[in-house]
């Protein structure tokens, strides 16, 4: 437990990705039952039935005065940390290893949970207690993704992270088959792929300046990029299930898909809201997201369908090693055999030069697609964001000029710079913020802005600095919506700094009214 808790402690305090990987690798050099538990915890697959946040509060009130705890919790702002710090430690507690500890906790009977779990907490050190409570309450929030853990393991044991990704969803605690394979004692674990969520193939943004010179247009085909949510549809004679990009089963939220789909295949596509295969925008789709169930009424008002991009399995046959063009034939075959009102096919754009494709990208005036996807015709279906196969090319963004109002220090590599900016437009004689951005500028622009902010602060609100209203930023964004949550009444989708407008006087900045008019709000 000591080792694992100091691993978590170090991970949470380390901003650097490489250092995190190094820390993980040091820990996973040995592969034993403790590491099995660690892997389950880091990938959020371990939980205790009886011990949740409310139970922990109950227990801590038995140990310390409730008011003193509440004062402390208010100050710290994190339940696990407050309890771990305030809990009276028994100095002579013996250190247990992670697996023994967890197995002991699992064995505790519900009727004895209070005394036995309290006893365990008392015997742990501060940091171990923090770790255990984090495990109990779930969601570690230590800045380590599942992907990072897999990357660390893959690098350490000379495997590719894609191979791990591919079998990941078919693995189960205690991951013996995974560990044996990592140690080269056995071959790669055999998984029943048909029943598994398969990590999706993702695209990289295209670099207009470099890639179009480098890449041969004839080797690629394109499709429109739709602004919905990416899904994987798994259908067999026995069942139909729908998964989100992260592998969550979202079937129950979209009964119309589940009820109507037939056949035997695994399909990759985009879930959209609309009638007769006409998508009606992301705002409508949002009405259907983050819900466990969908009422008949909701299904009627915001019907969903899937625009299919790709097919991974057809009648039990693994198609992922075939080329995109070959797979498309299977996809068309599947669709012909199992026609429904809930699945259509993504349109293929054929083109012979990048200039021609540019026309497609810009001519398509419909606001509902975000640009085009450019896919290598003979690309296999590879999990993750592999370079050189699929690219996304977004439409030119929408632009607005706004005035820099507030700034905050950034994170990660920008940590010592003022790199998070809030900007606004006029509303009568005052400025109202319309968004916040922390990317898009060049390193040089960042230095200039940082210096300006340091020398022109007129007010400080905690970490936030208000600056003299002198800098005009050209903001790029994907879309704009009305929003009741913001003072200005609008919310931008993915705003970023496009450039600094040294040339423009403050007075020429739009008012919020003109801004809304310009974007038809």
């Amino acid at each position, binding site marked *: 437990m000591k080792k694992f808790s100091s691993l978590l*402690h170090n991970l*949470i*305090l*380390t*901003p650097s990705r490489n250092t995190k990987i190094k820390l993980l690798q040091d820990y996973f050099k040995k592969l034993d039952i403790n590491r099995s538990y660690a892997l389950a915890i880091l990938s959020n697959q371990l939980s205790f039935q009886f011990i949740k946040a409310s139970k922990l509060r109950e227990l801590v009130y038995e140990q*310390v*005065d409730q*008011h*003193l*705890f509440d*004062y*402390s919790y208010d*100050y*710290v*702002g*994190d339940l696990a*940390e*407050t309890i771990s*710090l*305030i809990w009276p430690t028994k100095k002579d507690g013996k250190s247990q290893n992670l697996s023994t500890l967890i197995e002991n906790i699992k064995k505790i009977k519900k009727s004895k949970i209070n005394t036995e779990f309290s006893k365990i907490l008392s015997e742990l050190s501060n940091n171990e207690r*923090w770790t255990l409570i984090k495990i109990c309450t779930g969601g570690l929030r230590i800045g380590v993704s599942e992907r990072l853990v897999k990357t660390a393991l893959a690098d350490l044991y000379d495997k590719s992270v894609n191979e791990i990704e591919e079998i990941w969803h078919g693995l189960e605690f205690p991951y013996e088959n995974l560990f044996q394979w990592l140690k080269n004692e056995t071959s790669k674990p055999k998984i029943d792929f048909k029943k598994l969520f398969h990590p999706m193939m993702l695209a990289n943004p295209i670099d207009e300046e470099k890639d179009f010179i480098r890449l041969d247009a004839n080797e690629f085909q394109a499709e429109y990029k739709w602004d919905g949510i990416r899904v994987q549809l798994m259908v067999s004679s026995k069942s139909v299930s729908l998964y989100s990009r992260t592998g969550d089963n979202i079937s129950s939220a979209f009964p119309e898909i589940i009820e109507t789909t037939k056949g035997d295949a695994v399909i990759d596509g985009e879930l959209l809201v609309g009638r007769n295969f006409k998508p009606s925008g992301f705002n409508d789709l949002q009405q259907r997201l983050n819900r466990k169930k969908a009422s008949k009424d909701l299904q009627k008002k915001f019907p969903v369908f899937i625009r299919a991009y790709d097919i991974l399995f057809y009648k039990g046959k693994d198609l992922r090693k075939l080329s995109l063009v070959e797979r498309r034939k299977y996809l068309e075959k599947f669709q012909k055999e199992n026609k429904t009102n809930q699945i259509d096919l993504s349109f293929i754009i054929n083109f012979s030069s990048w200039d021609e494709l540019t026309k497609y990208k810009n001519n398509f005036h419909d606001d509902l697609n975000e640009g085009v996807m450019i896919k290598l015709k003979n690309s296999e279906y590879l999990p993750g964001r592999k370079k050189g196969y699929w690219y996304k090319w977004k439409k030119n963004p929408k632009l607005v000029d706004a005035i820099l109002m507030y700034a905050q*220090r950034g994170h990660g590599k920008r*940590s*010592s710079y003022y790199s998070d900016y809030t900007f606004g437009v006029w509303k009568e004689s005052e400025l109202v913020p319309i968004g916040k951005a922390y990317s898009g500028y060049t390193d040089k622009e960042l230095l200039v802005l940082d210096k300006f902010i340091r020398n022109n602060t007129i007010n400080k609100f905690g970490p936030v600095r208000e600056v003299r209203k002198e800098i005009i930023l050209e903001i790029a964004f994907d879309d704009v919506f009305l929003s009741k949550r913001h003072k200005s009444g609008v919310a931008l989708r993915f705003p970023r700094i496009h450039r600094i407008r040294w040339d423009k006087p403050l007075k020429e900045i739009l008012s919020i009214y003109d801004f809304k008019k310009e974007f038809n709000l």
Partner: protein
Amino acid sequence: MDFINHQLFIKDINVHIDPIFPKKTAIITHGHADHARFGHDHVIATRQTIDIMKIRYGDKCAKKFTPLRYGQKYSIKNFDFTLYPAGHILGSAQVLIEKNNHRLVITGDYKVGKDETCKNFKLVKCDTLITEATFGLPIFQHPDPKDEIQKLIQSVKINKHNCHIVGAYALGKAQRVMNLLRQQKYNETIYIHGSLEKLCQYYSKEKINIGKFEKVSSKDKSFYEGKIIIAPPSALKDRWSRRFPNPIICMASGWMTVKQRAKQQGIELPLVISDHSDWNELLDTIKKSKAKNILITHGQEDALVYYCKKQNLVSKPLSIQGRSDEEIE
């Protein structure tokens, strides 16, 4: 105790304790900027506190200075003042005020734990205690500073190609970190931010063992690999720290108890080293002082007031202007 108000002002004789604006007579508990200010007519303090004020603000930062030894009585009319060691930093003092057989102690900032850089805290029995409460929450239970400084030494050993920049307040904490390193047999030169230089020289002159130190200069980046650099916390976040090779950002402070705080501030190696009393020490001091009347200043008063009331002590918070900033230690 009616003779002193919530601003620590004794009206009868026009004396202030640690005033933040220029006053006629000011008794100063210690040299930190939130207690010792520029421009009083008459400053009464320990010799070291006066020296420190002169280093920071110049020889003429007050018109008149009266240095007092610990335990030496100083009277103004029918008020007797005595300074006792507070164990906070070099020269820090508690103030005992006696009037008509009533004993009132203002602790100033204090810590009970051992510290080689200053005289150790002396408990003074009294009727009224005005105590600080910087760490007045039961989550604050300071670990042994030796273990904390060992974490730094171990990290330096393991990470040979990094330099360690330790954030520490320029007066007191910086020198304590240096002294703790020496206690643990770290004998390398310690590199310091320019703003620490005069104070470090003063500590050396006062025979505090902080060992060999040198101001950071624009040497080759690689020179600082494997070295320990001490800088004020404000420099950590600043561009200043970018000149060093793969810096590991450390911070020596009682606030480092809370991981989330450390993380927010971008601290990779938190060192829980405090110059204030922790929760148990605060309670212990209150108890042993035998005071029936407890006034609480500076910091997390609520929990401590609540605790005192439960012990049937008369207690209330004193909110002194300009003393709520967490950054100040």
